[in-house]
């Protein structure tokens, strides 16, 4: 009897589950996609998937050496006039939504307006700030809403008033903001002042279009606050409509996403596979096993304790073919192309690329720390002493055990064309002791115990111990390690209740400001309480320059951070580790910004292909 029950139960659940044939390409993400709403997209995995489902006016070309931007939903590169202040974009004639309707200029304007409206609380509203009138318009709308909210609950009458208010706001938008649909195809954007990297923003998910017809039907007015709200139904199948190379066939939360080629996509030649499955596997071991058994083709992360051993095995494999490898390298081939020309070997299925992120230490620069005690780190000489006494090479070699590069700067070298970051401070114990003497703490005498705050479960415990040992040995200071839960960690770092903490930052777009704005005194992410008006002035001044002058001015500003003031100590630049078989999967870029485009991926049939066809 229990057996009958068991079989029945399992059969029912398998039947009700509706399995699909295996997708052409299966990708694994460690985290579930948080949202497909372009106004809320900010996580890397959300960005990766969204680039397959939506298409911005411009898209990064992963086949180019510098991730150049090329027209996507636009028919050509924009016309730029008025010294780089005015852009006119033209939407492709044949741009279509996945339901077959045309993508219009109005769809872009609608999406951008929605992200600009404070009601939507868009994560990247800042990316619209360079456009003329955006800040002023947001201020107007915020004042409107504040005045409304202070009027108290007005019931049904309130709703009508709020609706009227929204209409007013939309009219204000038309009058104030430099975004305009000239006709069905053309969009004119006017900036406050020229911004050399504005097009980088335009290629970012925040600037994706939205199917106005669909999304506006989810709009409603909240009678209590006067705000416009958007329901959540439109980001999921079967409602979801995108303009990307793929359409969203199925999204099973915390399981997988199934993407099928969008038959209305304007350039079928740019799409590598017919169907894509994006699996969500949180467990590192499960991810590696899934790859090893052939269930997946590309894992976007490899977070397992034995990762260093896997990388060592790969190095051993490359060592075995050293002659051929150096010959291929001399031809200028990248690491993936080299592996592709060697015999297929499971050891070479792990790949490590430089990435667009840096691990660094926050040094709290405020005059006092928690509890009002004077903060020794307010003195730049102490901060420099700490930086000079860190043996970063040891951290990378003995603890991280990857190919990560020692970091002198915040911006990873080679990640931004034309930008040459400063070298930073090297490992120099003698100079570090001298700095400490000049600060009035010879041999660390008189310096209170320092606390290094780091997050539990982030794998930073060994790094923290190495730092402690470095500082204690070279400077004679006492260091206490404080390992805390991630919520406590972010709470304390953001509230400035720490002395030294671990930190990391990944850039969003291909310009040094994506890293350097962090140290502006007005930055929302300035956890170090670092205020240096002359740094702010240098950044502002660089903004008025162009081309290589601008880049060297920015490098000069970064030099202030990493060589003189040291509100942060760059330790190493992250690498991104993937699992994929280079003999089968093509189209991943090795560019350090690690912008991967799912539509560009191609996959060849596995040996004995189709055997596992019945499984997902």
């Amino acid at each position, binding site marked *: 009897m*229990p*057996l009958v029950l*068991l079989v029945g*139960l*399992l059969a029912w*659940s*398998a039947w009700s*589950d509706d*399995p699909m044939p295996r997708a052409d390409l299966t990708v694994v993400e460690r985290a*579930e996609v*948080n*949202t*497909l*709403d372009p106004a*809320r997209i*900010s*996580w890397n995995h959300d960005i990766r998937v969204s680039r397959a489902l939506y298409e911005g006016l411009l898209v990064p070309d992963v086949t180019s050496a510098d991730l150049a931007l090329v027209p996507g939903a636009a028919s050509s590169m924009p016309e730029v006039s008025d010294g780089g202040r005015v852009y006119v974009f033209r939407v492709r004639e044949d741009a279509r939504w996945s339901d077959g309707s045309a993508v219009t200029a109005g769809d872009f304007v609608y999406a951008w307006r929605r992200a600009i409206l404070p009601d939507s*609380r868009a*994560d990247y509203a800042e990316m619209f700030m360079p456009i003329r009138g955006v800040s002023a318009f947001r201020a107007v709308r*915020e004042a409107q809403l504040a005045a409304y909210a202070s009027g108290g609950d007005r*019931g*049904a009458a309130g709703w009508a008033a709020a609706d009227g208010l929204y209409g007013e706001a939309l009219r204000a938008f038309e009058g104030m903001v430099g975004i305009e649909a000239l006709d069905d195809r053309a969009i004119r954007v006017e900036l406050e002042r020229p911004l050399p990297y504005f097009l980088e923003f335009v290629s970012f998910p925040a600037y994706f279009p939205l199917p106005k017809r669909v999304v506006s039907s*989810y*709009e*409603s007015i909240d009678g209590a*606050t006067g705000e416009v*709200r958007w*329901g*959540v139904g439109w*980001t*999921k199948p079967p409602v979801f409509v995108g303009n990307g190379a793929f359409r969203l066939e199925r999204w*099973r*939360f*915390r*399981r997988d996403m199934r993407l099928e080629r969008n038959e209305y996509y304007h350039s079928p030649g740019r799409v590598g596979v017919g169907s894509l499955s994006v*699996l*969500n*596997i*949180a*467990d590192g*071991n*499960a991810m590696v*096993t899934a790859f090893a*058994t052939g*269930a997946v083709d590309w894992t976007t992360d490899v977070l397992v304790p034995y990762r260093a051993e896997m990388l060592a095995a790969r190095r051993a494999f490359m060592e075995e073919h050293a002659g051929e490898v150096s010959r291929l390298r001399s031809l200028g081939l990248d690491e993936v192309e080299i592996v592709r020309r060697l015999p297929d070997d499971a050891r070479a299925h792990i790949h490590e690329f430089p990435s667009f992120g840096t691990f660094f230490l926050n040094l709290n620069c405020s005059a006092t720390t928690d509890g009002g005690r004077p903060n020794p780190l307010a003195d730049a000489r102490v901060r420099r002493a700490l930086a000079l006494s860190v043996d970063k090479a040891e951290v990378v070699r003995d603890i991280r055990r990857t190919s990560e590069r020692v970091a002198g700067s915040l911006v990873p070298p080679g990640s931004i064309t034309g930008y040459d970051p400063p070298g930073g401070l090297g490992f120099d114990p003698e100079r570090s002791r001298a700095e400490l003497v000049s600060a009035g703490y010879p041999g660390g005498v008189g310096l209170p115990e320092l606390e290094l705050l780091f997050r539990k479960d982030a794998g930073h415990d060994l790094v923290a111990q190495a730092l402690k040992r470095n500082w204690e040995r070279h400077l004679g200071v006492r260091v206490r390690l404080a390992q805390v839960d*991630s*919520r*406590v*960690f*972010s709470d*304390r770092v*953001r509230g400035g209740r720490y002395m030294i903490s671990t930190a*990391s*930052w*990944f850039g*969003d777009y291909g310009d040094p400001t994506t890293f350097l704005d962090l140290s502006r005194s007005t930055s*929302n*992410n300035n956890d170090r309480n670092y205020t240096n008006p002359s740094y702010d002035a240098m950044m502002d001044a660089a903004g008025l320059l162009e081309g290589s002058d601008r880049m060297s001015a920015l490098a000069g500003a970064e030099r202030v951070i990493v060589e003189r003031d040291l509100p942060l100590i760059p330790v190493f630049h992250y690498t991104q580790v993937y699992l994929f078989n280079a003999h089968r999967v093509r189209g991943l870029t090795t560019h350090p910004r690690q912008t991967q485009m799912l539509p560009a991926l191609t996959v060849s049939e596995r040996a004995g292909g189709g055997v596992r066809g019945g*499984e*997902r």
Partner: protein
Amino acid sequence: MTGLVIRRLVQLPVILLAIYTATLSLAWLVPGSPVDKPEGRRPSAAVIESLERRYHLDRFDRFYGSYLWRASGARWAAERAGLVERADGGEPSPVFDLGPSLQYPDRTVNEIVGDALPVSVTLGAAALVIALVIGVTAGVVGAWKPGSWWDAATLGVALVGISLPAFVTGAVLILAFGVWLGWFPVGGWGTLGQMVLPAVTLSLPFAAYIARLTRMGMIEQMTSDHVRTARAKGLPERTVLLKHAMKNAMVPVISYMGPAAAHAMTGSFVVERVFRVPGLGEHFVSAVLGKDLFLIMGVVLVYSTMLVLFNLASDVFCRWVDPRFA
């Protein structure tokens, strides 16, 4: 019996209210704002503040009240009775509205629980049935000749089943049956094959416990008067064992099934993680880590309701089998 059921059902809301109050108070104490991101680029202070206001996260008493108002079904009832207006663009709200998910803005907690709960229940139920089959068989075999080689073997296996944590047994099963033998897929959920390994892994501790309960019950019954009578009548050993002794020996097993069912369906977090089964356990853990208050409360309330109901069901069943329970 009816009295018991009514009494327990009346107690249910009181228990849930107590759990709600205690859990929310504790979750509220977790540092940081629920609408903030623990890593990376943070929303501006104004955005955080206005989101907190929207969801009543700025004041405990307001959140406590407004969440209860929606989650308890009171709002739904009031809407039905025409006492309050529908909130969001005329879309009818669900009876028990567990609110939005703060981590996954595209989803409501109702959707998340609705997707994940059937998976956890299926997995738990499959594990229990497997546990019953393995456990009872092993227990009967062991009790058949106590002290024999067979008995020692089943007891040993039971000990291993109880002692080894799921992340070990799961990994061993994956390695053996998934990677080496290739009989079953190593993870995921949906096909029959994908359910076997996680269900077996989850079933092992339960199977072990059931085996011990069965063995104890059987040994006790084997020496009892009615079994001796049955043997004296010359009945075959099989009939004595399976018919006369087993029926009474099952009472402790049945009373264990209630808590076991609740435990199997709510406590499968590790198994879900190892086999990447999209159940509710993972949400529970990630919601706490991310301070997703709505999701935490939703999962806690659903779990608590299940625990109370399963315990009730097991009590009712026990009384039905053995009226001496009082």
